[in-house]
């Protein structure tokens, strides 16, 4: 099934006079993986947060599956957010809940599933991200960063969202833990999960992205096939940014 899942039109956002997004437009089709790259402060996080309305845009238009989300939401904001999975850079698992509760709380409280049904679905989601039963009763602080992020992904996919937004899902991780999280996201891409991912992982982007968009100074300065963007960037700022990323990888730190 094809079709447009997300459309963002001429989106603007300023924080007290400082423009962060200056007319961003793009679309994500069903089953597509789009990657957003760009230097820090380019507006990547703000863009993702605008899409699920954690941040209110100043102007522009956002629609989900053809229905307007901003400025005139077709439904209540919390019901719209149920359709948008969000994965944070710092995981943001609920600290006072076990792994299993983290994944099923949304199903029970928000989706109003029975506890049995929610537990079943939560276990399924946890299996997908490779979190075994021995970890289900642990608290977030007892897990590694990679495990926490995989639980966070499970929490999001258990809600069966139409699209997943990921805000630098591996940036807070120790280098040796990045792989396990990227593998999970790779699997989701193979399952044709629609995703919009902010990441600086070049090889990963080259492999999974249908398109890379480069954000700089609140604008998309370049977009295209991953191989084009990464191997033959047109825009001088893109070129410099990609070179910097490559150097960092060669020197072994992220």
């Amino acid at each position: 099934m094809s079709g447009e899942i997300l459309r963002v039109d001429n989106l603007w956002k300023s924080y007290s006079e400082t423009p962060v997004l200056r007319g961003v437009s793009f679309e994500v089709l069903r089953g597509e993986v789009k990657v957003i790259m760009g230097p820090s402060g380019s507006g990547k996080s703000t863009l993702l947060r605008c899409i699920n309305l954690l941040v209110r845009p100043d102007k522009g238009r956002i629609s989900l599956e053809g229905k307007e989300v901003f400025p005139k939401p077709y439904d209540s904001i919390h019901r719209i957010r149920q359709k948008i999975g969000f994965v944070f850079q710092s995981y943001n698992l609920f600290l006072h809940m076990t792994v299993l509760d983290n994944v099923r709380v949304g199903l029970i409280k928000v989706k109003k599933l029975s506890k049995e049904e929610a537990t079943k679905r939560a276990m399924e989601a946890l299996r997908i991200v490779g979190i075994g039963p021995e970890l289900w009763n642990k608290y977030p602080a007892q897990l590694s960063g990679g495990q926490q992020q995989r639980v966070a992904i499970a929490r999001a996919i258990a809600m069966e969202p139409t699209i997943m937004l990921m805000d630098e899902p591996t940036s807070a991780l120790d280098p040796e833990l990045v792989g396990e999280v990227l593998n999970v996201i790779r699997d989701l891409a193979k399952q044709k999960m629609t995703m919009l991912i902010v990441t600086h992982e070049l090889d990963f982007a080259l492999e999974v992205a249908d398109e890379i968009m480069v954000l700089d100074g609140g604008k998309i300065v370049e977009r295209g096939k991953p191989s084009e963007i990464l191997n033959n960037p047109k825009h001088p700022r893109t070129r410099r940014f990609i070179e910097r990323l490559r150097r960092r990888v060669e020197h072994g730190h992220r």
Partner: protein
Amino acid sequence: MGIVSAFELLAKYHSIFLLGLRNTLILTATAFSIGFALGITIAVLREFGPKPIRHLLAAYVEIIRGTPMLLQLFIVYYALPAIGIVLPPIAAAILGMGLNSGAYQSEYYRAAIRAIPRGQYEAALSLGMTTRQLIEVLAIPMAVRIAFPSMVNELVYLLKYSSIAYFLTVIELTYAGKIVGAETFQYLEVYTIIAIIYFALSMAIVRFCKFVESRIRVPGLGAPEATRGLI
């Protein structure tokens, strides 16, 4: 004077000591519970409620904190009858102490709600939770854990300050001591006994709360965890 006469006093006047002890425990437990319910409600409404209610509750908290608890008890017991509300002494004391404690407790829970990391709220919202769901699932359970040491403090404080119910003629521990003292003139023994009872009770409360805290504690949340092995 001496230990022997102290025990004799206890034996002879045990029924009045027990009455005092009973009333002190009732005052403390009920006032704390009212204060807990009121405190959570005020904190949640001041953080998540509509603006006029926030201002109204802020004023309430300031008025309670800005006037002596004894005066508040006097108002409940001696002044309210003027507008037709007549309460028995112990009910007036419980109500007054509960209203007072609620104001103080609300500040503990409010600070705790604010101490919950922003990312926790973002995660709850991004799952599609409404404000009401977020309060129930995240804000209250986490705030209570964060505020727990302050709650223990408040409970021990109430135990000792329940003695001012004395001024509303409630026969609680201190009043019971006064009665026995007035009859026997053995004030030293009587007040030593009373002091020991208060001290033992507050130690027991602290012990019990430590146990409760260990049961509700969550790894990575709260002070004992944060500084363990560091200092």
